[in-house]
């Protein structure tokens, strides 16, 4: 009989089939349990904590099932402790990058510089954190691309988390003509900022003449906004400023040069001399 054929030691093909069935059942149980956890806690936990909780539960069930199945294969967990050190070194050398990513993933989960749903930049990649796996982090770029970044690269790279702090500031430089009233322009811009709900009252916005440029009086506009609303406000406000300044006769200055032609200059000098005499 094939099922009773011994593969090695006392382990038969039937044992292997039985273990495979047990592991499949364990995976199914793990999936059912995690789906139920997700359903019942979806409204009560944020997505980031929920993902971590379900992953911990899922892998715990799988590991327990594997440990329970090992004796049937003639391997006792106590033997693993002895063999584990040696095997660990071998695996470590053989799969340095995978282990590196795994350890980085564990540190990422503990240090938590990023959470699922955050907006980040790692090296040249910017976007939303979709998931943090044990060896890789999934990012959805702003243009909708799926990017898988190994955790080692995330952990050792420079992470810029755009939403880690609750508020952030943006800045415009508005250059108006020298003929225009800068005080009036500042008043108009301050009123426009005040009308925007997401332009925070505190920290207070700053609007002031920063410098007298070659072609324009440069007004700096600094506005704080909730990190989640920052970009939308930045997009809306600049055009509102441009339109409202224009409606009040204040124009954005263009680069310009006054050019004097030599002949015209000489004529003017003669004319001036004649009028003096």
């Amino acid at each position, binding site marked *: 009989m094939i099922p009773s054929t011994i593969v090695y030691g006392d382990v038969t093909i039937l044992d292997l089939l039985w273990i495979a069935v047990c592991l499949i059942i364990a995976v199914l149980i793990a999936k059912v349990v995690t789906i139920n956890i997700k359903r019942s806690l979806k409204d009560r936990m944020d997505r980031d904590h929920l993902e971590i909780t379900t992953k911990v539960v899922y892998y715990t069930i799988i590991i327990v099932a594997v440990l329970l199945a090992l004796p049937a294969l003639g391997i006792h967990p106590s033997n693993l402790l002895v063999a584990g050190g040696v095997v660990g070194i071998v695996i470590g050398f053989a799969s340095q990058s995978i282990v590196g990513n795994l350890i980085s993933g564990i540190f990422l989960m503990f240090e938590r510089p990023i959470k699922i749903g955050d907006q980040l930049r790692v090296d040249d990649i910017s976007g939303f954190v979709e998931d943090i796996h044990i060896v890789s982090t999934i990012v959805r770029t702003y243009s909708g691309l799926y990017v898988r970044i190994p955790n080692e690269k995330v952990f050792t790279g420079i992470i810029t988390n755009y939403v880690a702090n609750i508020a952030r500031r943006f800045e415009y430089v508005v250059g108006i003509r020298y003929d225009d009233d800068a005080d009036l322009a500042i008043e108009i811009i301050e009123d426009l900022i005040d009308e925007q*709900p997401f332009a925070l009252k505190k920290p207070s916005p700053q609007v002031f003449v920063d410098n007298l440029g070659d072609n324009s009086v440069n007004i700096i506009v600094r506005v704080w906004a*909730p990190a989640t609303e920052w970009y939308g406000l930045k997009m809306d406000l600049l055009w509102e400023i441009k339109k409202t300044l224009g409606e009040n006769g204040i124009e954005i200055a263009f680069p310009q040069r006054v050019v004097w032609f030599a002949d015209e200059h000489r004529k003017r000098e003669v004319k001036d001399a004649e009028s003096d005499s």
Partner: protein
Amino acid sequence: MRVSDIFGLHEVPLRIDLEGISITVERDAGGIRYKRDCMDEEVEDLLLSSNSKIRINPVEPVNKPKELSPHFLIEFEKSIFIEPSARKTVFIKFPVEIGVFVYGKKNFQILDIFTLNKQKFTLYGDVINGVICKYWKSEVYSTIPDANPVYEGVMELNITNTTARWVEVTKAVFAAYGMKIYYSDDMVAMRANMRIVSKKVAEIDFVNPPLEKGMKRSLELYTSRLRQIPVIATKFLMDEGI
């Protein structure tokens, strides 16, 4: 129609045209059509129900223009100085947001929220540890002030100074999860306690009894969420300055 007639349980069909608010609820083939026009914002919904009612009442003032934070900060026009070991009561105003609920088969569902007030957010604390709050500025009154209930509500704030020194209070921050809103024909009201524990730290929570007898309790949005998530604190600890 009077201002006070807006709040309460209404039968369908319903028509409200008041203070710049236009609400129409009428039966339509297969359901109920809800329309609202206010402050240049129009909403239209179709309810697949035959015998529902409409309930309109004030809700927590943290939902418009977007549900960004459950915290609400009221800055006082003038600072209050409270003497050591004293308990004083003042009144301030807060903006009213109006919630429209559909009621059918013993179940309420929020349909729409609107307000006639200007919206503004602020940051309480610093950008790392602080919280985003809905912002409002109010005078401080020693007696209950007059307020149009469609625009503004009145909050009784009982301030207890537990310290042995004078304390200056310039603002108060509230958590929407603890708000208990009541309304009557001429007023929307809440009551809160502010317990000052040091020169820069205070604890704020809401009080259950209404400001005046006979006031009706609003159907709040955050209170129902509190039943789903019982671990959320209803008090707010102002530890970034008062």
